[in-house]
């Protein structure tokens, strides 16, 4: 019985069923590994076999070990044992798809170059059987020189043999390249510092401009780069030009193996995938079905999530009320009820949307349709500086940017992914609706043609849809400048999505969101609460909360309707005065000159400031400032009253009365373009693993919002002035 754990690295193409296998082997005993400096996630898990602890590490799906980016190089370094945080794996588990053995074995053959023990797990044997392929595993074992186990991971078949075979992993001989190539590799290895694995010398030679080459040139200088170039020239002249020679040699060798081990039917049968794709990638039908599918996903988020979100809202309010009725009035009660519970409730409210969206995305990806969606949308997305795979994250962001940004993980290219993350918050999310609703109802409904409200709402959405591609293109030309990414993308065979996989991803996503966004949101809500609560004493040194409580009690004890109303009005007036006097209120008043060019007064400014952590807060804050008490954003009746109050308030002020519509529009445009969502910023930080990107998003969007609101107001003023 050995106490040292046996470490196994799982390597395989995307869609080989590697994750399914990982989950089947480690069950719930898994967690996400921490790898600084890279944005890919690698899961680690373990199980026990024969008294020994076997540790698994699930490397990201890849087609080859030719690393071109830090993210890709991490896997190579890990396999070579060159990562500080990870010991070298004791064995490598190569997972391949039985129905496409030839291509999958390409990666396996590269793994042999590492000189480490490898076990081959041939997965999806059911699919191979369906296609009439007969694989002789004994022949395969003999020809490759590795332990080979046939499995079907989604049914947990073959796992017993696999677990037993892990400790029997062997080092098989690697595929020999033509003599000229081997000579060049030997010479290159001689130029490298002692102890550098031969594997890296190979990668430097084959991967022109790849990570291995770049790292070596950075360390060894121009003379090394020059020698590398000369060696490649020699190979080209010998008819063994890189990179092509690697693939040609490997595939020739692999075909030698598969010719002996696999018996194919004489005529290639039409697979289910062939039949489905004739419709799903069809120019007309494919597009129509795609639009229908997207609409379904979108609707399910809005329709299915809403009742759940209302439920959570009620739950939050119930908790708040219980706290208020059971505690003495004072800062702690307010902090708990209005700061923390409201804060936590505000975060949890997103959960249904996130879970539903992630379930939809997990299903689409698992069944293989996601790649078709990217295929259909790539042209449109490319014109906007994004990629086909950006479409679904962008669409999701119309409901809520938080899951939308989390969904950008499907985009492999780092620059494309970051560009998508940067512009996703511009898609008008559902939290902006209360503000649009309020202002459109107040200023753009009565006395106007029937199509004005609808058109305005549509215009607000279009604003996001138009600005996003422009910003994306700008980013691609400046911060995210770089070579156009390769699109070469596999369209995997369709398969029935695995419920286990989908559930696991949904739970992971939901949990990650709650943990991260929860902390940041909570902190910012507490901060906003504090800024609105303190100071509690007015200029006359009387405590506001105490006076408000007194007024409320007077209202409760009132005997006549009149007295009650009077007392309630007094409590509302006091609340408004208190907020005006608070730090946030004073900031709003002090910043009035900043808001003036947008046509706003300090009340609007203060409400806007208060809604930076979460934009829905604006309706409630406006309610308090305009002495309506706390207005529920979802309550149409209360909203309408608030709208009327604002309108009357503005009508009383000469200047604002004239320009009420431009002012309302400028508020809406500001909200359309500004990033007032701490959850979004938290998720951006998590997905980009840096503080810089969320900070940049915040600043550029706020600047954009200010300029947009300014332009709309001033333009509107001119139009109204002349009209």
């Amino acid at each position, binding site marked *: 019985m050995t106490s040292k754990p046996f470490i196994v690295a799982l390597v395989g193409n995307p869609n080989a069923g590697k994750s399914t296998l990982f989950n089947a082997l480690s069950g719930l005993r898994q967690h996400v590994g921490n790898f600084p400096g890279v944005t890919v996630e690698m899961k680690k898990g373990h199980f026990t076999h024969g008294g020994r602890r076997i540790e698994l590490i699930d490397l990201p799906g890849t087609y080859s070990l030719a690393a071109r980016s830090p993210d890709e190089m991490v896997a190579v370094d890990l396999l070579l044992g060159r990562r500080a945080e990870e010991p070298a794996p004791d064995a490598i588990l190569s997972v391949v798809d039985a129905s*496409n053995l030839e*291509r999958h074995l390409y990666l396996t053959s590269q793994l042999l170059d590492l000189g480490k023990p490898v076990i081959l797990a041939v997965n999806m044997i059911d699919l191979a059987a369906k296609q009439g392929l007969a694989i002789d595993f004994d022949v395969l074992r003999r020809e490759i020189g590795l332990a080979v186990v046939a499995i079907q991971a989604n049914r947990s078949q073959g796992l017993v043999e696999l677990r037993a075979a892990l400790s029997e992993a062997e080092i098989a001989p690697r595929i020999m390249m033509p003599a000229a190539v081997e000579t060049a590799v030997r010479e290159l290895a001689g130029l490298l510092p002692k102890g550098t694995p031969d594997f890296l010398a190979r990668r430097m030679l084959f991967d022109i*401009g790849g990570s291995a080459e770049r790292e070596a040139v950075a360390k060894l200088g121009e003379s090394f780069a020059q020698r590398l170039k000369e060696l490649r020239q020699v190979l080209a002249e010998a008819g063994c030009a890189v*990179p*092509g020679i690697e693939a040609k040699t490997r595939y020739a060798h692999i075909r030698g193996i598969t010719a002996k081990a696999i018996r194919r039917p004489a005529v290639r049968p039409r697979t289910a995938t062939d039949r489905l794709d004739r419709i799903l990638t069809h*120019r007309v039908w494919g597009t129509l079905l795609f639009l229908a599918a997207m609409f379904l996903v979108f609707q399910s988020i809005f329709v299915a999530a809403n009742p759940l979100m209302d439920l959570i809202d009620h739950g939050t309010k119930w908790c708040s009320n219980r706290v208020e009725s059971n505690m003495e009035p004072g800062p702690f009660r307010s902090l708990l009820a209005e700061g923390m519970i409201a804060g936590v409730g505000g975060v949890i409210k997103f959960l249904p949307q996130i879970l539903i969206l992630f379930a939809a995305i997990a299903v689409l990806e698992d069944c293989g349709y996601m790649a078709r969606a990217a295929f259909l949308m790539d042209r449109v997305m490319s014109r906007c500086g994004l990629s086909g795979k950006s479409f679904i994250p962008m669409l999701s962001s119309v409901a809520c940017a938080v899951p939308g940004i989390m969904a950008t993980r499907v985009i492999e290219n780092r620059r494309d992914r970051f560009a998508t993350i940067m512009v996703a918050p511009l898609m008008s999310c559902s939290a902006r609706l209360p503000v649009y609703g309020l202002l459109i109802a107040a200023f753009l409904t009565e006395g106007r043609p029937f199509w004005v409200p609808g058109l305005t709402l549509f215009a607000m959405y279009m604003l996001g849809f138009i600005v996003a591609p422009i910003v994306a293109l700008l980013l691609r030309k400046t911060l995210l400048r770089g070579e156009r990414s390769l*699109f070469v993308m*596999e369209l995997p065979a369709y398969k029935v999505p695995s419920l286990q996989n989908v559930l696991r991803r949904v739970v992971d996503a939901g949990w990650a969101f709650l943990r991260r966004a929860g902390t940041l949101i909570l902190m910012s809500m507490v901060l906003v609460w504090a800024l609105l609560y303190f100071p509690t004493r007015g200029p006359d040194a009387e405590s506001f909360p105490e006076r408000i409580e007194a007024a409320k009690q007077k209202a409760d004890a009132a005997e006549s309707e009149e007295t009650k109303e009077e007392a309630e009005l007094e409590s509302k007036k006091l609340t408004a005065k208190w907020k005006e006097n608070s730090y946030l209120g004073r900031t709003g008043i002090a910043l009035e000159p900043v808001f003036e060019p947008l046509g706003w007064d300090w009340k609007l400014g203060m409400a806007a400031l208060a809604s930076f952590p979460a934009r829905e807060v604006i309706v409630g804050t406006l309610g308090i400032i305009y002495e309506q008490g706390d207005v529920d954003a979802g309550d149409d009746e209360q909203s309408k009253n608030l709208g009327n109050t604002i309108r009357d308030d503005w009508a009383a002020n000469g200047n604002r009365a004239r320009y009420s519509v431009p002012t309302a529009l400028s508020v809406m445009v500001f909200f359309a373009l500004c990033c007032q969502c701490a959850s979004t910023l938290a998720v951006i930080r998590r997905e980009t693993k840096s503080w810089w990107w969320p900070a940049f998003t915040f600043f550029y969007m706020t600047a954009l919002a200010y300029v947009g609101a300014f332009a709309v107001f001033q333009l509107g003023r001119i139009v109204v002035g002349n009209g």
Partner: protein
Amino acid sequence: MPSLCDLRPGQRAVVLAVAGEAPLIQRLSEFGVFEGETLELLAFAPMGDPLEIRIGETRLSLRLREAECVSVELL
């Protein structure tokens, strides 16, 4: 010299050469797209870009800009 872009859906062809940037050549060769290999053009996307081919058992999607780099001979 005809490239992948010049094929019609359903046509099969042999790859004569793959030109272009090293990353593209390497990526294509990893999937088995290099001189002497046979492939089939399956479909074009709604706006004519990208296109889809079958190489061996793999369905691959390529932008026109990438497909142009693959010169072929119709079978």
